């Protein structure tokens, strides 16, 4: 039961990380073009583009 003293703050901290992550993604405009960005990830690059 004393384990909870450690576990609860850890759980909350991890959850908080997730929350901050979401806020940051929102702020940096990552939700502006969901469709386009999804396709961009799997589009092929042309051979002449330097990787």
């Amino acid at each position, binding site marked *: 039961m004393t384990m909870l003293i450690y576990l609860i703050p850890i759980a909350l901290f991890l959850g908080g990380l997730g929350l901050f992550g979401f806020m940051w993604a929102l702020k940096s405009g990552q939700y*502006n073009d969901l469709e386009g960005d999804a396709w961009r990830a799997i589009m092929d690059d042309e051979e002449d583009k330097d990787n």
Partner: protein
Amino acid sequence: MRHERDFSPYIRLEGEIAHMDFMVEGVHCAGCMSKIEKGLGALEGVSAARLNLGTKRLGVDWHKGALGPKEIMEKVESLGFKAHPFLPEKLKSAEKAELASLLRALAVAGFGMMNVMLFSVSVWFGHDIGHETRELFHWISALIALPCGLYAAMPFFKSAARALSKRTTNMDVPISIGITLTIGLSLYETATGGHHAYFESALMLMFFLLTGRVLDQMMRARARDFAVNVASLRPQMARVMLDGGVSVETPVSALETGQKILLMNGDGLAVDGRVLEGAGEVDVSLLTGESALLKVGAGDTLQAGTLNMGANLVLEVIRVTDTSVDKAAELMERALASKSTVMAMADRAAKIYAPVVHLAALLTFIGWMMLGAGTHTSLVIAISVLIITCPCALGLAIPAVQVVAGGRLFSDRIILNRGEAIERLAEVDTVVFDKTGTLTLAEPSLINADELPPHIIALAASMGRASRHPLAIAVAGAMPQAPIMAGAREFPGEGVEAVYEGETLRLGSAAFSGAKALHDKLLESHPDASFIYFKKGEEVYPLILSQRLRPDARQVVAGLNARGYRLIILSGDQWGATEKAAITLGIEEFQGAMLPHEKIAFIKDMEARGHKVLMVGDGLNDAPALAAAHVSLSPVTAAELAQNAADAVFLGAELAPVLKAIEACKKAHRLMRENLWLAVIYNIIAVPIAILGYVTPLVAAAAMSISSILVTLNALRARKGA
């Protein structure tokens, strides 16, 4: 007629790099996106090109001087798409901020809800949970719930405060009270070591409600994006007069004081100006509400928003008001804000509902207290009643559908002028078409040009440029470089008259130009052409024009016939041409040679007999007929006057939008009814159960928010289907 375009108002300079935004037509998939970006990236001088697949907007950066918007647009066209200059609207920041703050509140509510649930579930299902552990968990829940709840409740508190400050209530008032009471009661229980706390209920309530709000905002943003995109296809242009009588089309935002602009019959004035030449009548009802026309002449000052109902006027720009950019976004707001009958009913219901909700909760509390249930239990039941009777679903039922349907219409290139048009389009049983410019494309062509002397064509073209009538425009197109005839005066539905080198010139119908005999003779040889006659002094010349039907007109008519609509053509053009069009399209009822007042009378008669008429028309002489019909549609090539009179405007060379509009609105109408039923049934079932005490705050929160999410999701079905 190609006019010079001036792009400088669209370009933003940052040092050596110029940036401009475009709206691109024809983009459907990721392949298109990469094609455009790679194609533009290959152009010399372009440093960046990025297409937003969601909004279809393209942002291009290039080195100043290396190339210009024209080259970019040409490149896009060569790839198979069409680019239109686009001004990112300033209005967007307020809306975007709203959506962002809702999303943040949602995220915090979600975080809080789930972490508090951790502890709540433990408390509920822990068989032999000790008294101290339960208290500890309650305190930790409070620690999480208070800051999260306060942050997440901000949207509701702010909205409720705004309503209360105006001495009225909206739905956020009972919600705010419910949240506050729930958290307050839970805090009290925690502090006094009680058994039940309801932090998770409050957070859950907020989470689900915010979900509904976020969905709603996203749909609005999407519809607004479409509206702005589509509106950018018909940018606010003004005709700037240069020396020599040549006019150049410029975006309104680029006008400067002192410039001379031409305001044609049917045009709306976009800036404040002083009349330099011309005399006639204007409609200032948009500004003053006065429906009587105002006589104006040289020296008079006119304000932006004035509509020209008389002869063409030349004005000097006195003041450029902030128009075009924000107008596009305003369009949709205005359209969706106008109330329909059903919506007005729902609105009124929602208005009296909030006080009723409070009353119900209060009575429940008193009732249970009198039954001896004790403060705690009575309060809990009252809170449940408060939460579950909240009319959120009812309030969302219709606006949610309107927004989705509006977005669908906009993406089909139909611009709504009025939100209630959605309902009226659904009720239509008869469709009346105008012929010229509506069933046919707006540009007929002159077929007997080689039989006429060139100087006559030049003069006729000059006269034609002074009119907006499709036939006149076609004549003007026969000689694009002809300057506009000075002092021309238009008689709507009949023709244009001017005095040139001492002679009276007339361009117009057979009756107007004194060519009746010639007309009857020509009708026999060209039964399906359109005629416009040019009279110079005593000589009369016929100008024979042929019109093309819109490419998909046949299919659209077949579609409408298949759905059981009664179709009629009412045309001002003569019988032969009208009959030919009707036969080609498969429309059985048609009338030709109709004068404007005859059209109005016909429609009014149909309406009086109980038919609901959709009028699709474009010309100046249709504007009153458009207003007389139950609902009206206008192609974008129409004069601004007709565009304002119509309930919706459609773009493009196809007739398909007419069918699409009807189908979209029928679906929307059905969904609005469904949503209203959903909301009502939910309340009828849920409220008695809550009053009788069978519902805990948690269940109330879940039920209420799920009902409003259901309504929102149901509205999403308006995106497709009929």
